């Protein structure tokens, strides 16, 4: 079963939940894979020691235009939907604006004069780590300065996974990177906090998941720091409240050191494992 852990708002505890849930399941001698899909800021591996067994560079194909062969017919520019081709016909200058290029290949299909070839441009890496025994963490890491994380995270979730249990630690928000991540999941855990910002962002996540026909439930983090509006919302929308994690300086402090709280608190580990078993029982449709 594939579970995605997401949140509209950042910093509500996605990584806390993903890493500790991974630990709790792994500890029960179950093989599990955690995919860190937050390519802009991947943090999951800070919490584990593992051996990197594979690294894959994710690239896109950007055009290279030979201005000698170019006849300045304008067709590539016309076909480019991202305004990534800059040219001044009179001066016979033509350039690719690399930051704007999405590597779609339209210009090279458009060119009838063989003036466009392609080169690989690095977008980031996908690193695979083995965590003893037999569990895996796949980290997607965007190269700093690259505009979109989508191709890198897609490469990460498309890696061959050989365990029955899979967790996707999703990027924040509800835009394209989030959709790409949850689309592959059988169930989504949304983690939020009981504040006006937390509620507002949760609503947006819920509306998004509804249109995608996804099953989901909510974990409330820092449950005692806020008001009741979130709980009223969950009740009125009939959204399952899966678990509450109270605010605790101890949790914050253990987390800040890059340690797993579940390793310090057996009851917390047990609670997470029970949560997983419950989701598995109610929604574990298939392992694919």
């Amino acid at each position, binding site marked *: 079963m594939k579970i995605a852990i997401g949140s509209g708002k950042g910093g509500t505890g996605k990584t806390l939940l993903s890493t500790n849930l991974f630990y709790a399941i792994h500890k029960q001698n179950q093989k599990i894979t955690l995919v860190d899909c937050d390519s802009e800021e991947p943090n999951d591996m800070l919490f584990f020691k593992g051996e990197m067994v594979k690294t894959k560079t994710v690239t896109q194909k950007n055009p290279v235009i030979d201005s000698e062969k170019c006849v300045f017919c304008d067709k590539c520019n016309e076909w480019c939907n991202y305004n990534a081709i800059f040219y001044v016909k009179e001066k016979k200058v033509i350039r690719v604006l690399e930051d704007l290029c999405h590597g779609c290949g339209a210009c090279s299909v458009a060119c009838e004069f063989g003036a466009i070839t392609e080169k690989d441009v690095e977008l980031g890496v996908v690193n695979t780590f083995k965590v003893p025994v037999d569990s895996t963490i796949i980290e997607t890491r965007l190269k700093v300065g690259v505009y979109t994380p989508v191709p890198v995270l897609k490469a990460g979730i498309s890696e061959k996974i050989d365990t029955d249990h899979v967790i996707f630690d999703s990027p*924040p928000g*509800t835009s394209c990177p989030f959709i790409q991540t949850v689309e592959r999941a059988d169930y989504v855990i949304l983690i939020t906090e009981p504040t006006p910002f937390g509620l507002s*962002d949760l609503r947006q996540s819920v509306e998004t998941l509804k249109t995608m026909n996804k099953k989901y439930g909510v974990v409330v983090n820092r449950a005692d720091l806020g008001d009741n509006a979130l709980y009223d919302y969950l009740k009125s929308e009939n959204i399952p409240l899966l678990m509450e994690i109270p605010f605790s300086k101890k949790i914050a402090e253990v987390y800040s050191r890059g340690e797993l709280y579940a390793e310090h608190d057996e009851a917390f580990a047990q609670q997470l494992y029970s949560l997983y078993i419950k989701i598995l029982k109610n929604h574990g449709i298939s392992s694919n």
Partner: protein
Amino acid sequence: MELAVISGKGGTGKSSISAAFATLSERVMVVDCDVDAANLYLLFHPTIHKEEIYVAGESAIIDESKCTDCGLCMTYCRFDAISEVNGKIIINETTCDGCHLCSRICPEQAITMVENNKSRMYSGDFRNGKMVYGKLAPGEENSGKLVAMVRDEARKTAKENNLDTIVIDGPPGIGCAVISSITGVDNVLIITEPSLSGIHDLKRTVEMTSKFNIKTWVLINKYDLNETATKQIEDLCVHLNINLAGKLPFDKKFVSAMINCQSIVEYAPESDVSKKIAQVFEKINQKPAER
């Protein structure tokens, strides 16, 4: 002075601190560039005077009556958005990048492009000045372009109304929306927190901002949650030659302020954190931006 408040890691307090800055003076332009999870309007309840549609690219749609399921489009698509299911060619709308290539090469002209037009930009008044923000519709991309549109509107409105101070509440991460939020500003303030994740994300954020030659500041929020990590961040700032703007303690009043739809400086003006925030803002404002 244009100041962008960002953070690599989410939830470090960007919006709460931006809101505090925005309510320190009577006349300010506040801009919410976290278009994927815009929240400041919840505190400021702006009166909206202008709403504009933002077109976040296009998506390809197949006219089934014309499609012969030849699959040519599938071989050209580089975004894996087109697949064959039981002999039928299907385009996945959320994966489609909107490049237009399939519609150009389709021999039957069965593919057309439709605009993604559910995102919006809003502009209006709030209690301490003007406010502009954007809301990206779920699943849409190109958030950087919406940020650019929001910032253009903000600069224009600020000029028309003689507002010298522009406070930008930025998005988390280091991708296009963040890059777009900081391009051309006078100062960038990175809000971080003393944790291993916070430090990791801070390093990546500084690596990103350093490409833009903008005066960069760091504010350590909730510094007392791990003073060892706080020290590490302070050392890192020295090492990276970045200005430490200040440190704020963990304070539950931030949450209470939010629940009351106020910024911390409105909710608890005499509190220690409010005073510290005012000092930070003054510090950033005073020092002339060095490029």
